[in-house]
């Protein structure tokens, strides 16, 4: 709790205290200290800004994205042999799914209750910032990386737009814009296809101890941002208090985004309109968990080889035959 600005304090504590009617949470932004920053998204508080043209969080996020993404070249090179490009540059106003320009959107979920009544909740969706994100660990160019403050950030200067990160993301979050990026300077028709984009947790702002734009923009304080342990404790406390459900604490081995919902996420997932750019809310096992034995063995293999080499050499020395001594 080394740095609490007035604004952050208001967002984090006043919002939590007054709007949810709960007391005791005093999280803060400490981005310079290593440790995963986490967001709690309280669906009890989000109203989807239905009276506005665009929800405040979405508008703030999209404005930043549009300012940062260059226009694609014309014509966009046709990647050999499939010729598939993804060009969203003329559809920057799409707000009902994730796109290269919309890193956050609001999923409206209409749920039929057990008694037949209908209930609507609004779920702001963006990158989950997983604790051990496959999109980053499996990127062949390390264009995608999980930083010490927990933000999973795509370096657009290094990304070739192969979309591997989207393929391995359990929620298929990253979105591709063809016709921009480093691949244009190499062999654009043979390798690469643009740049992948997603929420970067407003990495530059957070680095300067400022809040992500979505958190700052929300007038209902539906998003709470702070150190992982504090946010998790707050999420558990709120869930216990309202009999709510949590999503994101265990999914994919743990994430930096926790959702609190008044209805179970099985019901939310059943009702959700999922598909390309519209992530599900199903339970997710961490795929690479299965690889941990192999990964550990790789890390141990130098020791195994060294031990075997020492043993074999000792055996040969004891038997008194050291090969031909001149060449092996």
């Amino acid at each position, binding site marked *: 709790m080394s740095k609490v600005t007035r604004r952050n304090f208001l967002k984090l504590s006043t919002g939590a205290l007054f709007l949810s009617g709960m007391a005791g949470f005093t999280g803060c932004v400490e981005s310079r200290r*290593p440790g995963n920053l986490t967001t709690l998204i309280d669906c009890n508080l989000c109203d989807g800004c239905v009276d506005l043209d665009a929800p405040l969080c979405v508008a703030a996020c999209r404005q930043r994205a549009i300012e940062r993404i260059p226009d694609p070249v014309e014509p966009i090179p046709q*990647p050999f*042999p*499939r010729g598939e490009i993804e060009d969203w540059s003329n559809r920057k106003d799409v707000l009902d799914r994730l796109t290269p320009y919309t890193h956050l959107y609001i999923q409206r979920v209409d749920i039929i209750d057990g008694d037949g009544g209908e209930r609507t909740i609004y779920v702001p969706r963006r990158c989950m910032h997983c*604790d*051990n*994100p496959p999109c*980053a*660990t*499996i990127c*062949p*160019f*390390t264009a995608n*990386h*999980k*930083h*010490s403050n*927990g933000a999973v950030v795509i370096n657009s200067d*290094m990304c070739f737009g*192969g*979309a*591997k990160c989207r*393929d*391995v993301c359990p929620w298929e979050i990253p979105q591709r814009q063809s016709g921009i990026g480093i691949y244009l300077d190499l062999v654009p028709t043979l*390798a690469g296809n643009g740049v992948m984009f997603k929420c970067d947790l407003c990495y530059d702002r957070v680095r300067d101890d400022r809040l992500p734009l979505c958190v700052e923009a929300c007038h209902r304080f539906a998003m709470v941002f702070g150190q992982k342990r504090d946010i998790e404790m707050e999420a558990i406390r709120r869930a216990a208090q309202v009999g709510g459900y949590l999503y994101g604490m265990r999914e994919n081995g743990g994430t930096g985004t926790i959702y609190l919902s008044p209805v179970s996420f099985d019901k939310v997932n059943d009702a959700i309109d999922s598909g390309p750019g519209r992530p599900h809310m199903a339970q997710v096992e961490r*795929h*690479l968990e*299965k*690889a*941990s034995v*192999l*990964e*550990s*063995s*790789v*890390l141990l*293999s*130098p*020791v*195994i*080889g*060294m031990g*075997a*080499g*020492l043993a*074999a*050499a000792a055996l*040969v*020395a004891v038997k008194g035959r*050291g*090969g*031909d*001594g*001149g*060449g*092996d």
Partner: protein
Amino acid sequence: MELVEHWVLALSGLILLASGLLELPLGRRYYVTEIPSVTWAGDFFVVLYIHYAAAILFVAVAFFHLFYHGLLGHNGLIPRRGDLKAAIVVIKSLIGKAEEPPFHKYLPEQRIAYAGMAFIIAMLIFSGLVKTYDNLVNPQLPYILALTATWVHNVFSLFFFLTFLVHVTALAIRPNRPLIRGIFTGFVRLDYVHDRHKLWLNDIS
């Protein structure tokens, strides 16, 4: 022993190259995943498991080689003073521009190539271990370290592939062809040794 080391290193190295290439998102793009029985090539997790399995063998054998032969003092493949000059004479002799000198067990350019390959393998192993540590233990390594490890791994994979091509191409050169038998059996013909490796023959006689 050397035969087993060579083949484990060679086969695991080839699997690493192939699986490493498939970790680039090219399999689906270039229809590799549509070849019957190779559909798994588009599953990056499956390909990663294969890469890890091959890496265990590759790294273990490389360290075995280092310690086993190092401790037993097998230094015939370590480059010696004058190898570079001698290698130029050998290359000239292969194109008929010079007389081929008599050899020890290994040719001077073999010793130079061995040192080069050892350096490439060392860089691949070191960078690969950093990447594995990043994946397993701490995905939040400093970005510059993770980025450097990745690009060292990628660039030296290309060098590994090129040296593999040179290594295999060397067998196509006529004077080297009797060595093909040695790759599979560990033995070469005595008349070949008489003709080409007189210094080695003198040593072991």
